[in-house]
Each structure stands twice: as structure tokens, then as C-alpha cells.
């Protein structure tokens, strides 16, 4: 079928301000938005720029705003968008560098600030540290995060102030705080107990709705709030 893809364009070397370009092309219902962008780049305009790599929803490169909602372009199939008109824009709340490419530095800086790494300074046993199936299950959901930034850039609190850690960084903290083997939960909770920390989450659920990994993000942030108040880590 024929679709119209309207793409946000901005080339700072040429454009004073951003604009939109529309492209008409033939597409199959199973085509991904990423396939359409590749086609546009290959046949209409080689200057169109976007990030992508694995093309099946694991590497997290191609988070974009598609018809007003955040998706990975490689996981947004035409048939699931229920429209022949598709608008593709960069994710919100970050500086646009060129076309669909945004500056991710602030996002990764928030990630780095929550101690997103395993801490346990006791000498390890010769084999594995034991962990029960239940203990492992406790933080399973947040291990799925691929740092695509769909969540953080769909969050109105983040749009209002990008000093806010944002959902992705808090998910990273959650993954370690609830890991029975880790020893730095208290330090991380202290970091998150901050004016730019967990309390900026107003349970709007945009993050949870658009997470391509289907992580229960709002719930996880809620668990962090409870842990800060009660000190409970189970």
C-alpha cells in the first residue's frame, strides 16, 4: 500500500530551523518504520540521518517519536500503527543534532550517576555466589532495559527539567538495589532521595506504556520510593 511518511528534518549546517519533509512510498503491512527510513535514505535523500543497528529491538539505537508516541523504529510495524500517514520525529527533551539524531550525553550522564554497576567487595567464593530463583526473579524485570531512552524522553517531568534522573537511570538503580548479591543499595537510594530523584515521578505511566521491553517502569520507581521511606529491599 502507499504510505506517506512525514519526517522531521534539521541540518544545522544548512537550516536555520527545523522543518518536515513528506515522502510517498510503497510499503507492506509488515514493514518496520526503520525499513521505510532506510528506503527514503537510499532512494530519496541520502542526507537523512538516524541511528540504528540491530533492527530487532535489542540494541536500543533507534528510539523515535512515531505518530506522537515513542517507539523503536525497528519495532514499529506499519500494520500496528493503523494509519497510512506516519510522522517521525526525534525523541523529545534532548537537543536535536541532526534530523532524528539527538544528543544522548545528558541521558547517559544520569545513568552513570546512579552507580549502575554491581558492588560487592567481599571476596567472591571459588564458584558462583548463590541466589535463589525467587531472589533472582525480584529484579528480573529491570534487567531487560536496553537504554533506548523511550521512557525518559516520554516523561513530562523530564521535559520540564532535564536535571531529573529520569526513568531509565532509576531502572538501572533498581536492577542493583533489589539484587540480593549487591551491597550498595543504601548508597544508591541516597542518590535517588534527591530533589531530582524519585519524587519527580508523578506516576503518569508514559514510560511504562512506551517501553519496548515492556518493563513495569512506574511500578519499579514506586518500589524505589517505598525502599527510601521504609528501607525495605525485598
Amino acid at each position, binding site marked *: 500500500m502507499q504510505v506517506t511518511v512525514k519526517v522531521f528534518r534539521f541540518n544545522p549546517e544548512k537550516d536555520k530551523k527545523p522543518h518536515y519533509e513528506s515522502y510517498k512510498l510503497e510499503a507492506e503491512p509488515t514493514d518496520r518504520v526503520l525499513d521505510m527510513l532506510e528506503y527514503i535514505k*537510499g532512494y530519496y535523500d541520502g542526507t537523512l540521518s538516524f541511528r*540504528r543497528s540491530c533492527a*530487532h529491538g535489542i540494541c536500543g539505537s533507534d528510539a523515535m517519536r512515531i505518530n506522537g508516541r515513542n517507539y523503536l523504529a525497528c519495532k514499529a510495524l506499519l500494520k500496528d500503527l493503523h494509519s497510512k500517514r506516519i510522522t517521525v520525529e526525534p525523541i523529545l527533551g534532548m537537543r536535536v*543534532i541532526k534530523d532524528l539524531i539527538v544528543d544522548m550525553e545528558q541521558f547517559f550522564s544520569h545513568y*552513570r550517576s546512579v552507580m549502575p*554497576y554491581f558492588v560487592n567487595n567481599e571476596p567472591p567464593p571459588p564458584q*558462583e555466589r548463590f*541466589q535463589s530463583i525467587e531472589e*533472582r526473579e525480584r529484579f528480573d524485570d529491570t534487567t531487560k532495559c536496553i537504554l533506548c531512552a523511550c521512557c525518559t524522553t516520554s516523561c513530562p517531568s523530564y521535559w520540564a527539567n532535564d536535571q531529573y534522573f529520569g526513568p531509565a537511570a532509576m531502572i538501572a538503580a533498581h536492577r542493583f538495589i533489589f539484587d540480593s548479591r549487591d551491597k550498595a543499595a543504601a548508597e544508591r537510594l541516597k542518590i535517588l532521595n534527591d530533589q531530582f530523584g524519585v519524587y519527580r515521578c508523578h506516576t503518569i505511566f508514559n514510560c511504562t506504556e512506551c517501553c519496548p521491553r515492556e518493563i513495569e517502569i512506574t511500578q519499579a520507581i514506586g518500589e524505589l520510593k517505598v525502599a527510601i521511606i521504609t528501607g525495605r529491599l525485598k
Partner: protein
Amino acid sequence: MKKHQFDVIVIGAGGAGLMAALYASKTANTAVISKLYPTRSHTGTAQGGVGAALANEEEDHWEWHTFDSVKGSDYLGDQDAIEFMCYEAVQAVYELEHYGLPFSRTPEGKIAQRPFGGHTNNITGKPVRRACYAADRTGHMILQTLYQQCLKNNVNFFDEFQVVDLLVVNGAAAGVVAIELGTSELHVFHAKSVIFATGGHGRVWDITSNAYAYTGDGIAITMRHGIPMEDMEFFQFHPTGIYKLGILITEGVRGEGGVLINGKGERFMERYAPKVKDLASRDVISRAMYLEMKAGNGINGQNYLYLDVRPETVNKYAALDGRRRQDGSPYLMTGEEIIAKLPDIVDFARTYLGVDPVAQPMPVQPTAHYTMGGIPTNKYGEAVIDENYTVMPGLYAAGEVACVSVHGANRLGTNSLLDLIVFGKHAGLRAAEYALGADFQPLPADPTEFTKAQFDRIRNAQGNEKILEVSGKMKTIMMDLVGMFRTGEGMQSALETMRELRERYNHIPLHDQGKIFNTEMINLWELGNLLEIAELTTVCALARTESRGGHARDDYPKRDDVNWLKHTLSWVKPNGEIELRYKPVVITKFQPKERVY
């Protein structure tokens, strides 16, 4: 042009690169240069597990793992290196656990393990549970864990920098040249040790499980400096890619009891591998699938088969196979268990196929998956640049870009993640050790000379060719003629096409002449790499007049140990000619014999 100086630089931030960086950075000033943000690397897409004989679920021994890998390699793997890898595997996996990797667990709280293709109990010949897994996102968890530990250890990262050239001075590695993607500025990284960990080149083929980024950069860069490539004719086709898209469906699906079914409703692998059936090695299964489809046994006569992991199917065949759980009870799976063990597979099938795998079978076809060949190295990751194992000072490679060779003619599932962590670690250690005792080589007057010439050609190309047409033709021809089944005639014709395409490539105009994220320019450079690699692959494959592992020829259907029990080394000469020489396979304990699964 900006200049940087480090003791060790690592190119690529997947499992091998990060492991190398983690170890090198303990003693040497180390930087990682990656064209992607590290967590975007292709290691993250690995699903089913990392092989190590922990014996957490049943009896197992690293020696069994060694034999299975030798047999899996169709006897082309170097047995000393395979022994080293399988022995080191056990400690390496514990080490990942100590870094915090969230493995799935057994009821006793140990690392959980599942069966995988070609991994067997060497006494009974039955599948053994050796793949240590974190649900079906083991690679994702390895990548995340290693990146996190690198952050903890303050490793320097240069993210979104495309390395485009190696600097060689006095016969030693002296650094690399990179383009900063955000600005197109050239950076010279002066280093004592250079570790390539850039991954494979599965984007040469049409149906592929590989990321867009998998364009063989490390191989292309080093072969332009007269470094030979080893065993380039060996490329693995994984049996179960999503029909038409090539997206990988892990072998773990079959490990959990899924079976392949043809258009007649038969579990056809019984005929090809009577003992382990759907858990034979990948080359065996992919070829069986090809033959089934060729015989008209595809689903509705089409070019795909079913991978069936519905509980009723799993339980039916588990009962026929006499499969039991660890506690001795019959192996019975519920839909919930399947979803819990394979959540990402369920998600892929629902998203891309519109199929719920616990209710319907998944349409699959073999998909280009893994580069067995690459930069020749010894087991310490040192590049060995001729048939006498001469080490090139300062140059290292690890992971999929390297050829140790532990995978020989066919890699076993779970051995790629293992390769990354074992050889990444040793390459990092050795590179740091060398750097601490060596001086910097002097840099050439203009280190960017070759890079500038290369990119001037790309920027100034004239003509009407299109990048998608040239790459599309390469992919389909390589898939049809230098894919799973090959003939001399077909490959000769493919070779001619590749040479035509290389000429057409010079006439693809660059529309984007800007400096900020010029992805078109980088994509064109990457296509140049792929075309050169496609040609090299074809030349190596044409010369090898036998069938072994991933290299199957209709005109030479048998393995020929008399003439071909040897590694190919291929040099690209400055005039473009390709020279082939050979080196023997290292055999320690296992004399080649016929492979039966």
C-alpha cells in the same frame, strides 16, 4: 585533526572489546573506541547462553566440551586453543557472575544451564546441559555487565567514533585513525597496543541475523595493511532465522524442547541426526533444512519450515525421546514456563510474525549468522601474520573478528560468547603487558594520509549508481551462490559479479557533503568493506574443493582430510590480487573422524 595517546586502545565495545578493556585497564592506560554507544553492540543480541562445563545440572567435564567443539568445528579448529578455551570457560563464567551478571538459577541457587546444539555427554552421546543462561538474553546481560564494570573502573570511552585505518610503523601497530561521527573530525590515536574487537560481517548476505553495524570493519582495515585473513570461506548459517527477516530465534528454543517440522508434518531431523536430532550442530541442521526445502518439503512448498515450541509438541517429542527432568520426572512444559524461559523469543514472534509461539509454530529459514574466519591470532589474542605464527608487535584481535581458531569450519552455539570472554580477557592482559614494556612507535608525518585519500574518493565519486542497489545485488548473489550450498560454477559467477560491483561502487555519488553525522558517508565506507570481504570470501571458497562445516559444495560433497585439513590464509596484495597460502591444523588428542550426530 586531534591526537590522543594511550598504552592500549580497543576498537569495538562488544563483549570481547569490553572484556579486553576491563583487563587491560587494570595496569595500562586504556581507551575503547566504538562506532556505537557500547550498549548497542551486537553481543547484546546473543540469546541462548554461554558454554561452560560447570556441571550444575548434570555430569559434565571441560574435556567433553573440548571434544564437542573439535567435532563441531569439523576438525578444522586448533585443538590446543579449544582446550584452552574450554578449560578457561568455567572460571570465566564464575567471573562474570562475580561481576554481577544475573544468570538464571537452578533450585539450589546455582547458575542454570540448558542443552544446546552439539554439546553432549561424551559417554551416552545425548545432549548435555552446558549453556549457562540468563533467560534468552544472555548476550544482553554480558554486554550490560561488562559495560557497567568498565564504568566502575573508569575506562575511557570514545563513543560514536568510527575507526577507519590502522597505523603500521616499523612492522608494528602504532595506533589508529578514527572519524568522530558527530563532527567528521579526524582523530589519531597513538598507542602501543591495538586490539581489534570489531565483530563480524554478516551484512554481506541477504537473510542475516546480523546488525547493520556488522560490516567487517576490522577485517577490511587490517587486510589493507597486508595482514592475512584466516579461513574466510567459513561462515555460519544459523538454522532458525525468522522467515524473510533473518532475526535470530535462539537454539535455546530447541534446547527447551522445540522441534523443526517440515511441510509433511515430520520431525525431519530424526533422519539426519538420529541421536541428538534437533540439537545437532548448526551446519548439519541448516543443510538438512536446505535439502528439505529443495525436495519440496517446505511449508506449503515454500522456502521455510516450522520451529514448533508449543507445549503439546514439546511434550510429545520429549516423551518419545525419553527426556526427563533433573529429579527424574517426565519432561513436561507448560506455556507459562516457555514464556518465562524465552520471553524475548515470544516477543519477537509476536512482533515480527504475528505468531504466538505457545499457540502456533514459527516460520523459520536459515540465516547468515557468524564469521568463523578473521584476523589470525594465537590464544593470547596476538595477531599471527603468516604460516609460521609470526607475531605482529602491538596488534591484537579478539572475538568474532579474530580466528584463533576455536570454531574451525563450524562454531557450536554458546561458544561465541565464551570466545569473547576468554580471548577478550587474554588479549587485554597480553596487550597491557606488552605496552608496559614497549615504546611508542613514531607516528608517520601525516598519519591521516590514507584516510583522507579514501574519503576524498568517497566524497568525490561521480555517477548514478545507488547504494541500496549495489548492496542489494551483493547480498542476493552472495546468498544464492556463496551461501549455504556452493558450486565452482556459481562461485565463479559470483566472483565476477563482486568485481563488477566494486567497479559500480566507485560510481555511487555522495549526496551528503556535510560534517555532522554524515551517516551516508560512513555507510558507503562500510559497503566498501563488505564488497572487499565478499570477494575475499568467494576466492577462498572457490579454492577449497571439499565440503567441511559451514562450507558445503555440491561439486565436492565430501570432507577431504588428505588435501584440506588445513587453514586458509589469504592476503590482499596492493594491486588487488589475492594470494592464498595454507597452514596446518593443530591436532592434539582427536584425530579426525566422520561426524555423526
